C-alpha cells in the first residue's frame, strides 16, 4: 500500500492566516499521510514559515481547518504539541541558557514516563552522536550547525506524529547543510512523517515524496520533486531559476 493510501496524519483545509491586517496564507489545502515526506518550497517571504507556525498554533488561524489524525486543532500551541505536532522552527529557538541535554529534555516535556524519555534520548544520541558529546554544553555556545542539530534532536524528543521542519539549511555553510540533510535523510528512511519547508527544491529532490510550490500565500503547483526540477519555466518564474 502506498503512503498516499494511508489515512492523513495532517490535513489542511483552505487555511487562511497572517499578521495584523495582512493575510499571508490565502487558502492552503494539503495533506500529509503517515510515513510521507512532504515539502513546501517557495521564495522568501511568501508564507512558508507562516504555514508551519499556523499549523503549530504560533500564528492564529483566521479561516479554514487544521486536523491531526482527523482531530481538529484548537489553535493553542501546547495543545497542538499534545496531539503530536513537533515543530522544529526556523532559527532553532533553543533555550539559550540551558544545556544541550536540558534542551533535549524539554522536547520530552510531555513524555509519559522516565523510561520513555530515556528511550527517546538513546534514539536521538544514536542519530546525532555529537549531541551526546556536547550534552553538558550551554546551547548559546554551540555553532550554527550544532544548534540546528539540537533543534532537530529536540523535535525528535517530542516523539510526535509529524515533524514540521522549517528551512533547516538557513544560514549554514554548505558542508554543514549537507550534514543536516544527511540527518533528515535518515529520518526519511526511518519512515518518519515529515512536512519540511525549504527555499531550494534541489535539496529535497531525492527526499520528498511530494512537493508543493508556494507563491504569495497560495499553492501554485503540486507534484513529484523530479517533475518540478524538469519544469524550467516554473523554477524560473517562482524560484528564480
Amino acid at each position, binding site marked *: 500500500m502506498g503512503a498516499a493510501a494511508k489515512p492523513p496524519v495532517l490535513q489542511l483545509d483552505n487555511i487562511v492566516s497572517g499578521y495584523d491586517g495582512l493575510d499571508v496564507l490565502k487558502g492552503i489545502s494539503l495533506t500529509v499521510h503517515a510515513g510521507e515526506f512532504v515539502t513546501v518550497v517557495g521564495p522568501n517571504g511568501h508564507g512558508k514559515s507562516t504555514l508551519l507556525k499556523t499549523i*503549530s498554533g*504560533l500564528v492564529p488561524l483566521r479561516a479554514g481547518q487544521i486536523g491531526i489524525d482527523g482531530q481538529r486543532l484548537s489553535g493553542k500551541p501546547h495543545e497542538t504539541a499534545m496531539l503530536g505536532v513537533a515543530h522544529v*522552527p526556523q532559527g532553532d*529557538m533553543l533555550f539559550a*541558557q540551558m544545556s544541550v541535554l536540558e534542551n533535549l529534555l*524539554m522536547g520530552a*516535556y510531555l513524555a509519559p514516563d522516565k523510561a520513555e524519555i530515556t528511550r527517546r534520548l538513546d534514539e536521538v544520541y544514536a542519530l546525532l552522536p555529537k549531541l551526546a558529546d556536547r550534552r553538558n554544553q550551554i546551547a548559546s555556545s554551540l555553532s550554527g550547525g550544532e544548534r540546528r542539530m539540537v533543534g532537530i534532536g529536540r523535535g525528535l524528543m*517530542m516523539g510526535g506524529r509529524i515533524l514540521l521542519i522549517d528551512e533547516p539549511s538557513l544560514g549554514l555553510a554548505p558542508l554543514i547543510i549537507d550534514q543536516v540533510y544527511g540527518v533528515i535523510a535518515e529520518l526519511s528512511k526511518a519512515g518518519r512523517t515529515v512536512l519540511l519547508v525549504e527555499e531550494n527544491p534541489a535539496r529535497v529532490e531525492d527526499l520528498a515524496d511530494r512537493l508543493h510550490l508556494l507563491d504569495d500565500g497560495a499553492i501554485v503547483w503540486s507534484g513529484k520533486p523530479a517533475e518540478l526540477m524538469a519544469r524550467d519555466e516554473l523554477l524560473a518564474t517562482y524560484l528564480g531559476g
Partner: protein
Amino acid sequence: MVDVLMAILVAGFTSGALYALATVGLSLVWGSMGMLNMAHAAMLTLGGYVAFTVITSLGLPIAIGFMGAILVGAVAGAILYFAIVRNLLKNDKSTFEANVMIATVGIGIALENAILLTYGGQPLKQPVSIAGTFRVGPLTLPWQNLLIIAVVVVMMVVVSLALGRTRMGRAIRATAQNRDAAQLMGVAVNRVYLQVLMLSGALAGICGVMVSSMTQLSPPLGNDPMLKAFIMCVVAGLGNLPGAVAAALGLALLESFVQYALGARWGFPSLLFVVIAVLIWRPSGLFGRAEIRRM
C-alpha cells in the same frame, strides 16, 4: 576592630539575606513574565500579618505561622494572576509590561490600605523571634540573625532545586528563555505564569515574616525592602536569579559598611549611587545580557 568588622558583616549578611529573598521573588516574575510586580511589597507585608494573626490571635505554633504566610502569599499570587495578569495577557502583548505595572501599583495600594483598615496603623510586634545571643570566639551574635540567614538559605536551596531539578522548574526556565519555543514543547505558559506568581507570592510571604521579626509590623512594612530589592534587581540585571542573590548580598554589605563609616543616613544614598553607576556603565545590569527591542 575585628569585633566591629564582624558585627558589620553579620548585619550585612542578615539584611543581604532578607533582600535576596525579596529580590529573587521579584526577579523570578520579571525573568519569566516580563512583569514588574509593584504589589510585591504589599504581599510581603501581608505575609508578616498572616503569621502574626496565626500565632497571636489563633494561638497556633510559629511553624504554622510560617506555613500560613507561605500559603496566603501563594494564594495572593494566584488571585493576582486570575484577577489581573490573565486578563492583561489577552490584550496587546506590547502594552502588557506598562499595563501590569500600573495595575499592580493599584493592587499594592489597595492591599496596604486593607491591612491598615484591618490591623490599624500602630506598629505590632511579630512573635517570630528568638531572643538571646551566642558566642563564637570573641564575637557575640544574636540568634535572630542566625535564624533569618538559616531560613533564607533553606528557601534559596528549595527555590534552586525547584527551578533546576523539577519538570515545573524546567518549564519556568524554558518559558523565561523562549516563550514560543516552550509552547511548542507543550508547555502551557499561562499555567507557568500562575505557578511563578504563586512561588513569588510564597517567597514574599516568608520574607515578610522575616523582615517584621527584625523590625515591627506596620502596613508600609514591605516598602523599604522592596525599594532596595528593585535596586538590587536592576544592579544584577532584571531576571537573573543567581545575580540577584549576589547583588543583594554585596549591596547589603556595602550598605552596612557605609552606615558604619559615614552614618546611617548615607546607607540608602550609597545604594542609589551604585545603581546609577551601574546603569551608566552596564545598562543591562552586572549579570544581565543586553537586550535590543524594536520599538
